[in-house]
């Protein structure tokens, strides 16, 4: 079946999967967003904080796993990106990894006696992961549009041309705007998740209040990002693979790919609807609508930068070194093999959904958290 597809079709198939994974990761980052709200929502009440931590603690591994899968899929499907970006933007990725390592232990160790570093340290780890980790991820993703200073030699070995090794991306308002937009977006989805997952009036009230504060800030940074994105030059390539700059490329990409544009608009509308309905109608299920909205929006952004003859990882040092889904992918055989493996994804999503439903059909309550036999974080 997949064997009969052309290499380009397989590359496109895999870019769609990468985009979907990126979208799912954007959604799962509600865990990170929630981690930055512990202080705001609990206001120093230890029981409330424990409820919040436990609510997220049952989901944190999904985010970790999605990140690992996102990395693994990129490695397998687009290995030249893997070697260029990870090896090049060394400090950005290392910092992101650092932010994620400290998350992994924090839930389990925070409350345990003899935890060596103390509860506050683990809570600050979670805050760092939810803030710095997310902003850096946003900045790293923004370089898909803004480009980086690298070159690829004739052996396809990549070389980075700034000594800051990726940290230079932090100096770009464009990159930062996406980083901050993502940070405030995941805070909103984190609050939506709390509202859905925890049965506690005060937590719901405070979560709604935080959404009211974070939503306008998110919209501001996201609007700045979109304005800069739609007005900037983009990196296009022709049938020979020659890369050149095109005015308003990313805006044109949306207009020339109406389905992708529709997904993008639909995604944004769903996030806005989720927020409005939560605030005005006290609905508790809007993490689903908002979450799907995030998946669609992020996915559409990835599709925008990867399709329509666009270089998805542009080089501002040497335009012709820019990476496209065509020049950076795995071979036909590998993409075909991997495509069969991708058949497992719906099954994986199905059991995750089932388990999620089973575990969350009874909301977290204060009584559950205070039960002396409960396994608490």
């Amino acid at each position, binding site marked *: 079946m997949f064997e009969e597809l052309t290499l380009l079709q397989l590359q496109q198939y895999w870019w769609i999967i990468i985009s979907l994974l990126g979208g799912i990761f954007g959604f799962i980052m509600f865990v990170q967003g929630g981690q930055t709200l512990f202080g705001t929502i609990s206001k120093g009440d230890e029981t409330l904080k424990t409820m919040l931590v436990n609510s997220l603690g*049952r989901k944190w*591994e999904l985010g*970790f*796993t999605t990140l*690992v*899968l996102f990395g*693994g*899929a990129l*490695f*397998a*499907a687009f*290995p*030249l990106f*893997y*070697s*260029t970006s*990870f*090896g090049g933007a*060394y400090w950005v*990725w*290392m910092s992101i*990894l*650092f932010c994620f*390592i400290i998350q*992994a*232990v924090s*839930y*389990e*160790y925070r409350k*345990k*006696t*003899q*935890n*060596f*570093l103390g509860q506050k340290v683990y809570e600050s780890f979670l805050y760092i992961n939810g803030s710095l980790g997310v902003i850096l991820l946003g900045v790293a993703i923004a370089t898909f549009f803004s480009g980086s200073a690298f070159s690829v030699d*004739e052996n*396809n*070995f*990549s*070389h*980075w041309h700034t*000594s800051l*090794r990726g940290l230079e991306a932090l100096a770009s308002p464009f990159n930062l705007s996406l980083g901050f937009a993502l940070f405030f977006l995941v805070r909103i989805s984190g609050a939506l998740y709390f509202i859905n997952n925890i049965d506690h009036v005060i937590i719901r009230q405070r979560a709604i209040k935080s959404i009211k504060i974070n939503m306008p800030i998110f919209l501001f940074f996201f609007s700045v990002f979109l304005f800069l994105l739609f007005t900037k030059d983009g990196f296009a390539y022709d049938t020979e693979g020659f890369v050149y700059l095109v005015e308003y490329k990313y805006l044109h990409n949306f207009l020339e790919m109406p389905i992708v544009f529709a997904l993008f608009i639909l995604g944004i509308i769903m996030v806005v609807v989720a927020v409005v309905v939560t605030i005005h109608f006290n609905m508790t299920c809007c993490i689903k609508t908002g979450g799907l909205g995030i998946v669609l929006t992020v996915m559409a952004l990835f599709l925008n930068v990867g399709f329509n003859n666009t270089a998805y990882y542009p080089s501002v040092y040497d335009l012709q070194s820019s990476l496209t889904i065509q020049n950076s992918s*795995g*071979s036909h*055989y*590998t993409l075909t*093999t*991997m495509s069969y*493996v*991708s058949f*497992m994804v719906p099954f*994986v999503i199905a*059991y*995750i959904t089932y*388990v999620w439903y*089973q*575990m969350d*059909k009874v909301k977290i309550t204060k009584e559950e958290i205070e039960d002396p036999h409960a*396994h608490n974080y």
Partner: protein
Amino acid sequence: MMEEHLVDWSRAQFALTAIYHWLFVPLTLGLGFIIAIMETIYVKTNSDFWKKTTKFWMTLFAINFAIGVATGIIMEFEFGTNWANYSWFVGDIFGAPLAVEGILAFFMESTFFAVMFFGWDKVSKGFHLLSTWLVAIGSNLSALWILVANGWMQYPVGMTFNPDTVRNEMNNFWEVLFSPVAISKFLHTISSGYIVASLFVVGISAWYLLKRREIEFAKKSMIIGATFGLISSIFIIINGDESAHQVALKQPVKLAAMEGLYEGKKDAGIVALGILNPKKTLTNDEDTFLFELEAPYALSLLGYHDIHAFVPGLKDLVYGNEKYNIIPTSQKMAQGKIAIQALKDYKEAKRNNDLIAITKHEKILRENIKYFGYGHLNKPEDIVPPVGITFYAFHIMVALGSWFLALFALLLFFVLKKDILKYKWLLISAVASIPLGYIASEAGWIVAEVGRQPWAIQDLMPVGIAATDISSTNVKITFYMFAFLFTALLIAEIKIMLRQISIGPNGGH
């Protein structure tokens, strides 16, 4: 070639991450199954005792699990951050098992992990038990895929070199998956994990018995731990034999280093106990050992399943041995350099669109590609890994493995047939063997990874050209950052574990 300093720091960083990662993973691999067995007994008997027992070991599992996950993600991304050239050269093959690992194993593990810990009163008993088994299976599936990737690095198969992309491209997924090296590596590694977990369970149980606490809990846990450990120890001896056979066939230099064998010989024996002479080099006539105790014929038997087989030594492998048809490394280097030059000429011909030259250079390249990596070496002696580290690591692993077999057998016998509380020496030995399990397991990895140096990919890519083009200062800083962080987390884990153990399965009551 990269600056040597950088390569050393990159190796150090990866070794640091791998060693820390491997402190946590083996326990997860085995303890998952031990817990699943205990919970199965609980579901069958509906006994509150077994529920408590399961929950106690589960708590220790969770404490350990978190750092294993954290260090694991670093390893995946370090392939890109620190070994960028490698990532491209083999990403078409190596990336696939990593992605499959993510889809098939990680999600299973992480999804059902939440049910395992928080689902006791939320899902049915049967579904909870299934979740516990799936966590155990998921972690072992994860090991399968990463070890398939590692096995491929030790014995690259199922691919062809594409001169246009300058990388190896997969052409047979099944050959990669069912490579004999990958399979034996997987079986050997997971069974070593089962032994570490068994030692952990029997060691902690023994501590309770020494303290005269939680007697019933400790005895029953010890029966399960020792049984699981004994079966695993017997299994590891069987698959260890196959591992050694594969090393002999596919990585003879590693085998020679494991045994400190400089001169090849027939009827070769295994050094059961030995101290290497530090003055010994490839080129002098010093004795190899200051002291040695040898089991005759065992190396020939182990390596080639023939007690009279010739086992090549390091000198044969470096300088060649015509009698046994062993090509000198200098010749492989010459062929490697021809391959590298042919690749350059091929690219030049491509640029000039010279079809005759393209065909000619591609043919030369194909004829010599087998030794491509040798073309990057400076001298034949470069193929020899650090002999001392490899030798001692191998012998420590084997000696401890033999001890564990005896320990599990003794514990099982005494706990079932005698009043084990009276045998203090045995209980102390069981407690002391917990760290020994980790030492043996780490030693195994040292044999596997140090023993294959200088290769990132056996025969195809030395570590010198695999590293990212970056200044060594960056790598040095991250090395210290990770060393500091991992050490802090390890201290935290040990303290929390000790505290949980001292609290006990009954919450200190």
